[in-house]
């Protein structure tokens, strides 16, 4: 089986859900989420504050999915980029990313990995203030292993191995 087959199987089993834009838009960069993460973003939400926070998360994800311009960074230097690699300290490890929603209060981070170029697997949604970088990476990699076994996510020093185009990589 290929990683593509594995994703297809996990969706069939209900262990992954493709995040759906509203309205239905062109999909250039599919995002698959754990069902609990998807439900958290899609709602229904318990109160309006949560709805506002998730509206910002949704808009950021839709921008990525529909081929919007994305800013990225491998390090923590450039602030406020859309995608930032978490595992900067040991580049041999599988590369975990955070999708940064900075307009919501609190800010949110969607943690995940790229299965292949332009295909993102989101494993956890965390308020920024609750982020513990090492813990998030450990959990993301454990979730990945649980979903896909020995299949490796994208790990590269070339940003275009993760996102093929319309990406502004900041150093």
């Amino acid at each position, binding site marked *: 089986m290929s990683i593509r087959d594995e994703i297809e199987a996990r969706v069939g089993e209900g262990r992954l859900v493709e995040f759906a834009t509203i309205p239905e838009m062109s999909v250039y960069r599919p995002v698959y989420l754990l069902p609990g993460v998807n*439900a958290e973003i899609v709602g229904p939400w318990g109160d309006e504050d949560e709805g506002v926070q998730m509206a910002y998360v949704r808009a950021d994800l839709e*921008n990525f999915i529909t081929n919007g311009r994305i800013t990225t960074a491998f390090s923590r230097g450039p602030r406020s980029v859309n995608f930032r690699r978490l595992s900067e300290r040991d580049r041999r490890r599988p590369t975990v990313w955070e999708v940064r929603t900075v307009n919501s209060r609190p800010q949110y981070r969607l943690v995940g990995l790229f299965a292949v170029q332009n295909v993102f697997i989101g494993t956890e949604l965390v308020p920024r203030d609750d982020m513990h970088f090492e813990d998030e990476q450990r959990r993301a990699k454990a979730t990945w292993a649980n979903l896909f076994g020995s299949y490796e996510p994208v790990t590269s020093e070339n940003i275009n191995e993760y996102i093929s185009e319309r990406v502004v990589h900041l150093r």
Partner: protein
Amino acid sequence: MSTSLREWSTYAELSDTPLTEADKAYFRARTRRQIHGEVLDRFEDLRELGMLNRSALARRLGVDRSYVTRLLASPSNWTIDTLSDLLLAMACQASLRADAICTGQSGNYSHPWSGLGRDNQMPPSGAPRSSVSTDDDFVEVSGPSSPAYRTPTKTESLAA
């Protein structure tokens, strides 16, 4: 209280139903992303032509290069004045167009890995996928246009 975004088609209606804070937040974020994308497109066009880089943009704006990096990284703190200044520094101006929210067909590209397992999918949590769509981009930037989609090419790095 349980809440979610409303059906897309209702956004196209001039009803008396008050907009929720979530509705407003969602469209504010879309607008912000749209404007940010337009500015980045213009900057990348000029950078690829060798006409501008972050340092030159900083000099034109009279600010630090690191501040320009932050501005380009995210539109989170942009005001309309910020937008105007950035565009002027790139020899551009904004032209505003307000389009009605459209419920017609748009967006028919689908990545080959989109829709995997959908036929065998268990019922997902959350709202069903809407069948309607929109084309609501309303900020145009004068200058070279950027195609909606280009084939994979190269790293677009702001190493300048």
